[in-house]
């Protein structure tokens, strides 16, 4: 079994969307494309509105990913944990499919005797260590996020440390929303490292609306185009991706 690339969108926001299409619909679409959507809800203090919290959960659920609502202090550790867990979850899904091919439709990893379960998990761990990751980071930069962007910047640097400690390669890109003229503004082009983040959020003009749905859609479009381009390039050499990996 070979898995070439895992693709994820990481959305960091502090509230509810209030403009454009439903973000969980876009997340479902992304999931269909083989892209996982993880969502972090971030707070300075107090608690998030119920609808905000629900939306965070709903987007991740639809996007096949993981959500977590945290205070700025826990952001760094949460961001890396959510990303790693979502990678494992996706790979576990791939392996589960494979198992069903062998053991029959009804079988799940947890139906295996404990000893064999360990072996399967080891395969998942190996993959998580060696797989290539493409991560689209989408940060809410509406007015209320202003006080939290410093923590976001630190958390992303920390995430980069964790992912670069793996054997597999990484590619990151960072965008903020809402953009000045478009749905999103690119803050950092695709790069293997996230260490040049100082002042990356300085250029933004925090605005009042939160068009999470349209922003997700723009991110999804960029990732899909990228994949198509890559497939064209690697057609002859047999391009692979996670969705095809179970074959």
């Amino acid at each position, binding site marked *: 079994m070979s898995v070439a690339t895992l693709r994820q969108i990481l959305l960091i926001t502090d509230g509810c969307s209030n403009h454009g299409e439903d973000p969980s619909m876009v997340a479902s679409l992304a999931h269909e494309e083989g892209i996982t959507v993880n969502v972090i809800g971030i707070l300075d203090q107090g608690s998030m509105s119920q609808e905000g919290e629900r939306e965070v959960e709903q987007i991740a659920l639809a996007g096949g990913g993981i959500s977590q609502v945290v205070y700025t202090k826990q952001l760094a550790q949460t961001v890396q944990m959510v990303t790693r867990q979502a990678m494992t979850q996706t790979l576990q899904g791939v392996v589960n499919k494979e198992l069903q091919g062998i053991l029959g439709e009804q079988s799940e990893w947890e139906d295996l005797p404990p000893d064999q379960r360990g072996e399967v998990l080891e395969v998942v761990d190996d993959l998580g260590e060696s797989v290539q990751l493409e991560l689209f980071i989408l940060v809410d930069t509406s007015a209320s996020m202003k006080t939290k962007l410093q923590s976001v910047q630190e958390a992303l640097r920390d995430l980069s440390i964790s992912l670069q*400690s793996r054997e597999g390669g990484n590619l990151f890109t960072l965008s903020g929303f809402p953009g000045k003229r478009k749905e999103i503004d690119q803050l950092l082009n695709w790069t293997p490292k996230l260490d040049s983040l100082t002042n990356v959020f300085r250029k933004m003009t925090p605005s009042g609306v939160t068009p999470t749905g349209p922003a997700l859609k723009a991110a999804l479009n960029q990732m899909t185009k990228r994949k198509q381009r890559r497939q064209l390039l690697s057609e002859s050499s047999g391009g692979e991706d996670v969705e095809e990996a179970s074959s």
Partner: protein
Amino acid sequence: MKRQAPELIPGTKLTGKWHGQTYRVIKKLGQGATGTVFLVESERGPLALKIGHENPSITSEVNVLQRFSKVQDVKLGPSLIETDDLKIGDESFAFYTMEYIRGAPFFSHINKYGKEWGSIFIVQLLGDLDRLHQASWVFGDLKPDNLLITSSPPRVRWFDVGGTTLMGRSIKEYTEFFDRGYWGLGDRKAEPSYDLFSVAMVMINIAYPHRFEKGQAEGLEILTERIEAHTWLRPYRKVLRTALLGRYTDAQLMKKDMMEIISETDSKKRFSSSTKNRMKQGKQFKKTEGKRGNVWDAMLAASFIILASVLYWVGQLM
């Protein structure tokens, strides 16, 4: 949101789904991010049983313990006894049983008998880490919470292998205060220097039980400041700095430097009276060798030779 491991009330009997072994719950030992640990009675006597919130995390801990048991001759963690599932309704909870380590929490020993014990435990820990590293593993989530002190003689033991990682891979489970990535002093690649950084932070944690945060300044600057500001840490400044900078590539080297400082430091200044009292009770400690025991008794009679007793303890560890 996340599933929680079941609360098993003392007296509960549970039977594993696959192996049919029955365990009776004696009491809850503790609870953490990955699961809950109970002391149970089994056919083979008392055991620790860890039941997970999520099944995969339990399985990966089992994987580590299983591989440990394949390393001959050296003990790298609590020995694994059995793996099974507990069925409750239509839910299935993975659990494993392991050797029960009868010990006191790290800090309760230090609070009772003095910080000086901290240096002894660090030396013991470095010896254990060296063996672990030789076997191509890195402990990962090293912190006082994952250490227990067994008695007679006092000995540090680790138990939570949730962060234990094959050399060369990336560390997924860590605690920020003990993580060099958090302090901006390195990556999260599993290599000996990762653990040795954490060892230095355990020492700093002994001096600052409430820990402290990174703040805005450079990590190394803050840590250096804290080391210089504490009389117990100051003698170890060079060892600590070397470990913090990731310049020890080998636990053995750090152990050697630690021991040199312990034997150089003025023993009278270092030993609190509570430790002296404990030393006088030394007769109760189990002796591994008759001959050493006699030497030990003689030393007690001349209780002013405290340095010698330190060397004795250090000798026990090697």
